[in-house]
């Protein structure tokens, strides 16, 4: 009297195999089509516009370098979000963590001059610590008081913006009209390579972080525990994984990496902490992480795509009458389609319905005892 689930046919296997890659590709394709229709409605030729976007971001060394520059903060914030989401922690506060990290890096960068081989690592570390401290707030509230980390993270974003703004305008303000900290010492600067763009050594740190976390995820005990925790926290806790402690550290790591994005901006691109410098890299990081399916290597691909879109948008604005915000529309549509993964699950359930019922009153011991026929 055993029952086999019918949801395990060959069709299911194919769908399952393709799913991780298919989903983001489909999302990007749909966004492209919708965006194209939008362009058409605005009276421009979509093929031309997409051609401009591609040539403006990928063709030619200067354009490619700008893309890499745009991609770097997204690598950090995307990775930060991916790590926490994979472990089931909804850290949507990468924006705030990045700002606090940037402030810390900016302060260490100008206030404590010392030899570069000490100063630069210390300033980067300061960025990590700043972001980590900021994310420790939702982590501790979550674990000790059961407060939803999503809400706290969200609320801490504007707080971080205003708080760092306060420091930049009142506490450590550089002389002059701009709301910024004093310029960092050259000993704390991340080296750049080209006059065409601000891309700097930070991109190597970002790529290294992605690769390290890819290895951690599949090859270490922690990575395994994070995955189990993310899929089923109750099961992980029952199975002897110290879920509360892991949760705190994952959040701190995630925040720290978001803080590195801030450090990279300050030490490599702007040369000082400026008030309100971020165009929302922390939020774009959520989109990048989702497009990457929380896979650190996927983050590299997704960040490159979003970086290219951002890089190409400048060219687009110059060459056509379209606003550069068209690119943001494309990005948001992508995320919107990705968020529809719930309906994907619904579709799977429709195609391959699960026969055994969940109702406990129905399943229990009836077939555990011999049935009188």
């Amino acid at each position, binding site marked *: 009297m*055993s*029952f086999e*689930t019918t949801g395990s046919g060959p069709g299911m296997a194919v769908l399952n195999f393709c799913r991780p890659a298919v989903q983001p590709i489909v999302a990007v394709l749909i966004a492209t089509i919708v965006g194209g229709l939008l362009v058409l409605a605005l009276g421009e030729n979509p093929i031309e516009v997409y051609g401009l976007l591609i040539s403006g971001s990928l063709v030619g060394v200067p354009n490619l370098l700008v893309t890499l520059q745009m991609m770097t903060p997204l690598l950090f914030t995307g990775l930060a979000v991916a790590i926490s989401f994979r472990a089931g922690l909804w850290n949507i506060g990468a924006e705030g963590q990045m700002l606090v990290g940037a402030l810390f890096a900016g302060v260490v960068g100008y206030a404590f001059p010392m030899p570069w081989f000490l100063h630069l690592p210390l300033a980067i570390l300061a960025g990590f610590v700043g972001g980590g401290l900021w994310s420790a707030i939702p982590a501790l509230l979550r674990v000790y008081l059961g407060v939803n980390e999503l809400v706290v993270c969200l609320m801490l974003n504007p707080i971080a913006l205003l708080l760092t703004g306060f420091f930049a305008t009142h506490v450590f303000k550089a002389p002059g009209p701009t709301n910024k900290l004093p310029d960092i010492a050259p000993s704390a600067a991340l080296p750049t390579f080209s006059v065409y763009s601000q891309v700097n050594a930070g991109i190597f740190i970002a790529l290294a972080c992605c690769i390290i976390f890819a290895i951690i995820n599949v090859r270490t005990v922690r990575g395994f525990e994070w995955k189990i925790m993310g899929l089923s926290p109750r099961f992980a806790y029952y199975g002897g994984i*110290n879920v509360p402690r892991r949760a705190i550290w994952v959040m701190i790591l995630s925040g720290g990496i978001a803080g590195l994005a801030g450090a990279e901006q300050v030490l490599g691109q702007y040369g000082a902490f400026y008030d309100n410098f971020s165009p929302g890299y922390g939020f774009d990081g959520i989109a990048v992480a989702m497009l990457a399916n929380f896979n650190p290597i996927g983050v590299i691909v997704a960040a490159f795509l979003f970086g290219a879109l951002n890089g190409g948008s400048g060219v687009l604005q110059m060459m056509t009458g379209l606003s550069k915000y068209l690119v943001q529309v494309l990005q948001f549509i992508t995320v919107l389609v990705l968020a529809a993964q719930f309906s994907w699950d619904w579709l799977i359930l429709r195609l391959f319905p699960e026969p055994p019922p969940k109702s406990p009153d*129905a*399943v*229990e011991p*009836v*077939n555990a005892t011999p*049935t009188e026929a």
Partner: protein
Amino acid sequence: MPDASVPVVSMRNIVKRFGNFTAIHSASMDIRRGEIHALVGENGAGKSTLMNILYGLLPRTDGDIDLRGEPVRFANPKEAIALGIGMVHQHFKLAPSFTVAENIILGSEPLKSFGRLDRIRAERETKAISERFGLNLDPRAIIATLPVGLRQRVEILKALYREAEILILDEPTAVLTPQETRELFATMRSLADSGHSIIFITHKLREVLAVSDRISVMRQGRILSTIDNKNVTAQEIASLMVGRSVLLRVAKNEAKPTGELLLDVKGLTALGERGETAVDNLSLSVSAGEIVGLAGVQGNGQDELVECIAGLRRPVGGQVQICGTPLRPNPRGNREAGLAYIPADRGDLGLSLESSIWENMTVGHLGKFKAGPFFAATRAKQRAAELIARFDVRGATPDKAAGSLSGGNQQKVQIARELTRDARLIIAEQPSQGVDIGAIEAIHRTLVEMRDAGRAVFVVSADLDEVLSISDRVLVIYRGRIVANLKAADTDAEEVGRYMGGLDEEPASVGALPKETQHVV
């Protein structure tokens, strides 16, 4: 007023299958106008399933339902409600932040022009209906501020507001205090006198005898009989409920308990989800080399007891020792102390259904695959493949998702994981739940082997046959207390069933239980 001649509802030969699994074999019952009809049976007997079919929540596989002589087939509860069937679920379906009146009208709101809600009329009608049925309620009270008993009244009024004539109450007394229960019974009686028919699902026999006109007994998906509540004793109903089906006796030698207490619970008190005392100053012990079964009707504190031992719930009083180590407040500590725990809640607690089988088998064994910070995934997969073969998990490969397996094979995955741990105390909750007969025997044999290897086995099961066949000693839990401590060889289903129903509430022999426990050991 009851008119005995024409049944209001007539269900004939209802069959319900979920896949290949038959939940209801062939159930027939008639409900008369103006009667209180009790539907009793053990958990899993199919009571709720049958009522969900009547209420339109589940489609039936076969059989007929007549309502006032007309054949009906409901696609959803809305259609059932329209024809005068109301159901109050065990877990209330109310919006806690809304008022009483808002909850009652929700779904059939009185409207003013332009679709605006007529709040005044809603409150007036709520007041009128609550007065008509003698159920005092303030229409403007917020649900969240009301005690459970009053929330239930809101549920009942909600059904009556939709002009329900047939009212299904699914274990309505499970959440009530004795006083609230008495009030509910008075309400039920007055409703019946005014021509409503009430179907009362329960497994508390005293309540059945106190309030019902007729009683239908359900077991293993069948209605065994419907009897008038005249000259019936609780014992008779209990033996009908429990049944005398053939026991699957497990071939095993006499237990040789060593007397070394691997599980020792003293005076444990724990609160349930609603803050009620679920485990009440409970003491028990399990020695190495014996299998102790805990029998009891579900909801008498066994879940809370096991959660305490597993470290998933904090007790408010008492001591627990696992293999001589005092209880710790998290699962990790207790597992390290020597606990292996096979939970009944496979889907949420015992397995991660989205994760692969090898991952499910590896959690709790991570130490074996550690090399510094690194993790030997290949070896873990190899071990999973071995366990799949050893425990005969059908249709499994290490990389398949655990959720793709059938219930019985999921059970084997968690059993394989837990029993291969180096743990001396094994707690198995509903070990054969959803498992076919062949697999049950294998599971039971494994548990007996574990016992013979000097481990202590504690089986918690709602299936009385299982408890009796596998245990060396049977404890019966009732309202959070151990009310009987019996040698399995010297007792039978009827005796245990009596204790389970709380019929022998003041047994002289159970007074000094801890002592007696040691005596049996």
